[in-house]
């Protein structure tokens, strides 16, 4: 078994800055096995002093000792599973312990099955032993067997990272059982509970509709009267869009200037071929873990797309149609570059809906 400690992984790799070995100062390390190293304070620069060198070597030794510790787990807490390779590509749980399966795994005919990323993570935590051909797999073996087909190394890295922080991460469910986020218009047309309130609501909506259309009619009429006719002009006499003194408020000026339309992405697929980017994971907040139900997970907090920094490119405009559909307007790209994962949120934003204060 690989001796990487899960605790150590949680404290290493600050996504933000440079990884400075100086940060592992040995402050009050708990005696015995299982103490977590704490971060110290960075020094500004090397100053060639002996004291600094001593501190450095102490920190390095502490890190090395910590990594060398052997982990063990109680045999009573370990689950057992059997790996089924392609075309199934899942692990079948034979012995259950603990409450991992509250938000992991899926049930088929009463039996719990795990996706390869879920199985691999439980293995790394020391909570699961997977058999293949009746022989328990080592971590190295598991990595080669399970990271195939859909699950690339980058996807596993992102999955493991998010799980370790505490999120609930699942693969996107098939379309028909997926509850998509409802747009505000849909919410307005939602189910009618109280017939009386619905009648008043209908009446109100009718009144507002009539009044807005009436005011629009009047303003259109006045606009018609006061506009300067651009189409009658010859080529040499092109007037400006807003002639001086032709409007009464600056809101009107801005409205008149808005002649450029927005482009709605209707493109179904990219170039007719499959887009390299699809939504890989749905991520739910850890605080909602009590409310999480496997059959009806609800609206995901993030939709994550995994990208490999070396071999992929940022998405082209035509790929957004595939990602921003079903009312989703924001997608989180997890860009994996070796061991570093950076997250970029791509949001479909309509600046026409943004309320801008005009002085």
């Amino acid at each position, binding site marked *: 078994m690989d001796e990487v400690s899960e605790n150590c992984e949680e404290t290493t790799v600050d996504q933000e800055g440079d990884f400075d070995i100086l940060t592992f100062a040995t402050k009050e390390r708990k005696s015995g096995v299982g103490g977590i190293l704490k971060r110290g304070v960075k020094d500004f620069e090397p100053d060639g002093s002996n004291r600094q060198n001593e501190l450095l070597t102490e920190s390095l030794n502490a890190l090395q000792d910590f990594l060398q510790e052997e982990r063990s787990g109680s045999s009573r807490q370990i689950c057992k599973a059997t790996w089924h390779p392609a075309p199934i590509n899942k692990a079948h749980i034979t012995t259950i312990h603990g409450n991992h399966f509250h938000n992991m795994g899926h049930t088929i005919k009463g039996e719990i099955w795990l996706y390869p990323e879920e199985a691999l993570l439980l293995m790394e935590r020391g909570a699961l032993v997977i058999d293949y051909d009746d022989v328990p797999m080592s971590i190295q073996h598991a990595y080669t067997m399970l990271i195939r087909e859909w699950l690339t190394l980058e996807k596993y890295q992102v999955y493991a990272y998010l799980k370790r922080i505490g999120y609930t991460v699942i693969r996107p469910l098939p379309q028909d059982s997926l509850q998509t986020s409802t747009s505000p218009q849909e919410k307005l047309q939602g189910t009618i509970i109280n017939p009386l309130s619905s009648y008043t609501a209908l009446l109100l909506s009718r009144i507002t509709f009539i009044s807005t259309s009436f005011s629009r009619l009047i303003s259109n009429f006045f606009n018609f009267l006061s506009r300067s006719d651009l189409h009658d002009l010859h080529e040499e006499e*092109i007037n400006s869009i807003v002639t001086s*003194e032709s409007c009464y408020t600056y809101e009107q000026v801005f409205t008149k200037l808005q002649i450029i339309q927005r482009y709605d*992405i209707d493109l179904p697929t990219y170039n007719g071929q499959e887009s390299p980017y699809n939504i890989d994971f749905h991520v739910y907040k850890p605080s909602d873990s009590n409310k999480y139900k496997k059959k009806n997970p609800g609206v995901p907090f993030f939709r994550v797309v995994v990208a490999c920094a070396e071999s992929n490119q940022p998405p082209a405009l035509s790929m957004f149609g595939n990602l921003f559909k079903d009312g989703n307007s924001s997608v989180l790209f997890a860009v994996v570059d070796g061991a570093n994962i950076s997250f970029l949120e791509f*949001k479909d934003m309509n600046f026409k809906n943004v309320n801008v204060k*005009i002085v």
Partner: protein
Amino acid sequence: MRNGKMSSQSSTKKENIKLNTRKSSVTIPLPNSVSKTSFLTNIFTTFLANRFPFLPYYYANNIQRSCVKTQGSFDANSNSVIVSEKQAIHRLWMQGFFGKGNLSRSEPTFEWRNEKKENQPLSAEQITQNRRIARVRRKKNKKNASASASITNNEDRKEIVDVNDKGNTEPTSLIDTLGLPDIASTSVSIEQIKEIDENYKDDDDNIMQNQAISIQEHLQLTTEEAFFLCFGLGCLEVYDANDNLMTTLDCWNAFRTSSVSNITPNALQDSPLTQLDNPFILRYVVYHYFRSLGWVVRGGMKFGCDYVLYEKGPEYKHAEYCVIVLPYYLSTNNSMNNNHFRHNVMTSWQLMSNLSRVCVQVKKSLVLCYVIIPLSLSDPISNSQSHEQIQPSTSSDNDQHHNNNLNNPFKCIKHYKVKEVVIKRCMPERVK
């Protein structure tokens, strides 16, 4: 009276400097004037003016007289329009934040910086200078403090040699260290020049008299800003190098031509006037789009992007968005490369990460603004997103429509569409 840009780091140190904001004085978002005559009178007279041009109308003349037009001169070499008149400069800046003073960082503050008045509020450049001096002083103090602390702790510590310390305790401004007189002084006399350079020979005695030379600052407008003021608002008149008034169409052609000629003079290229992806058109479409939504749009060169968007103006808040213009070609499914734009950002994650990091450091969100370039400008303007034309008409008709529309900025611009995607860095460990 004026509020310079303050960074959050030094905001705590700013209490000793009293600054009055002038937010209340900036009440007008655009430099064109809005009608003040009564609603009905205006409707009536405009109606008359448009429908019955032969009628003598006193009121319409009145309206024409009251609009104030600024004069600007187009300089093809620098691809900008220069405005020199002081009142106009002030108006263009205060009403919409257009242009850049050529002797200042952004707002034309040259004269203001050089008025040696008592209790003069500081301009933005002066505030930045003071902040930098204070920062150098703080760093020096910190270094001295930590040096002395570690000396007491460590016996065999090497001597700290401060390379930057020239022996003076007072941090000096850059200008003083270089030994030059403050360029900011309005009048430069010949004695001052001789002080610096003893070998200075005044070749042109006519020019260099013993008189003070007053330096006037002018306002530089980019071609997009100038075209917006001229075509969008009708409050700017542009003159060419020979002092001839340029019509809107002249400006449209001149700006399109000068946007390519400076960079790649290639004889084999299409004439810039026939290009649908002319860089001026694409940049202008984005500029116009955001301006028409109420944003103050200014150049983004400082942040590595094309434009920056301010909600009310640079005086109020730092900009929220950095905009990059990305052309999108419907015709060849976007396989064409336009050298004038930052496609490279979309070709590798490293470059994308690069740009988004810069935006994070300056606390802005990145906006990818795609400009969808139409296949052709033949009428009618299609509302659907189909790639084919709707009405089959003769090809010669189409060509004529296309060319007509290309020469009419109003019709041409309407064919271009815009799509925005906002990119923000996210840290899942912080969000949960």
